[in-house]
């Protein structure tokens, strides 16, 4: 007789099981939401470095400042800010869904496109303001 703890004969589906679906915009946005979240997780080290260096002394600050002003530093910051705004708008989209709105096809497509475009617009807007006030 089989043990009650025996593994099931057929493997039960596990998340993620993305490969069985045709790629749609809302699905791609869900994946990008998770990827940007992961990137922001790592990017927090940059904020920590900036704060710790500023709390130490002028030479530590000069090092982090030089890095942030370098081409690579600016590219990372630009990517970080886009990831932040994209993820933030994706979060707003989720809050709208949590409130019970926006589930119909035109609405969820509109929300996905709005997140995509809004994230880019906000990033460019913030960087334009940044370069203007600098």
């Amino acid at each position, binding site marked *: 007789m089989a043990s*009650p*703890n025996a593994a*099931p004969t057929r493997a039960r589906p596990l*998340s*993620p099981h993305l490969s069985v679906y045709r790629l749609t915009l809302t699905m791609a946005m869900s994946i990008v939401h*998770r990827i940007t*979240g*992961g990137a*922001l*997780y790592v990017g*927090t*080290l940059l*904020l*920590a470095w900036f*704060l*710790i260096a*500023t*709390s130490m002394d*002028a030479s530590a*600050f*000069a090092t982090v*400042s030089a890095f942030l002003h370098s081409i690579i530093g600016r590219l990372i910051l630009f990517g970080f800010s886009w990831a*932040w705004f994209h993820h*933030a708008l994706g*979060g*707003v989209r*989720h*809050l709208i869904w*949590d409130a019970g709105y926006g589930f119909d096809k035109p609405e969820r497509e509109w929300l996905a496109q709005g997140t995509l475009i809004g994230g880019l617009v906000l990033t460019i807007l*913030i960087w334009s*303001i*940044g370069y203007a*006030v*600098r």
Partner: protein
Amino acid sequence: MAADHDSLRSPLAKVRYLGSARSGAQENWLMRLTSAALIPLTVAFVWVMMSLLSKDYNGVRAELGRPLPAVIVMLFVLVGIYHMQIGMRSIILDYLHGQSKEWALMANLFFAGILAIACVYAVLRIGFV
């Protein structure tokens, strides 16, 4: 588990329709709560960072040492890190299984905890030292 032998019901049948293991909704709620809090905190944080752009070392320290920017940055860091810790936890629970999952969950908490304390300590040090 020894208890499994006391019943003919399969482990799956025992847990079916019982919902999450009591605390799942709490994590979901905290994710929504921190998301909502991060919207105004993002606006405030961007405002603080903008004000630092034209400043040198002493100027940045003076600005971050003021009460309002210091509180904004600390709130942003604490709420943000709490939020990302829950997010990474759900990523780990989705993709990792067994021993590697346990190590990753531990590393996630250590990373978030160390980062949160280090950032808050840094802001306090800028203001008070």
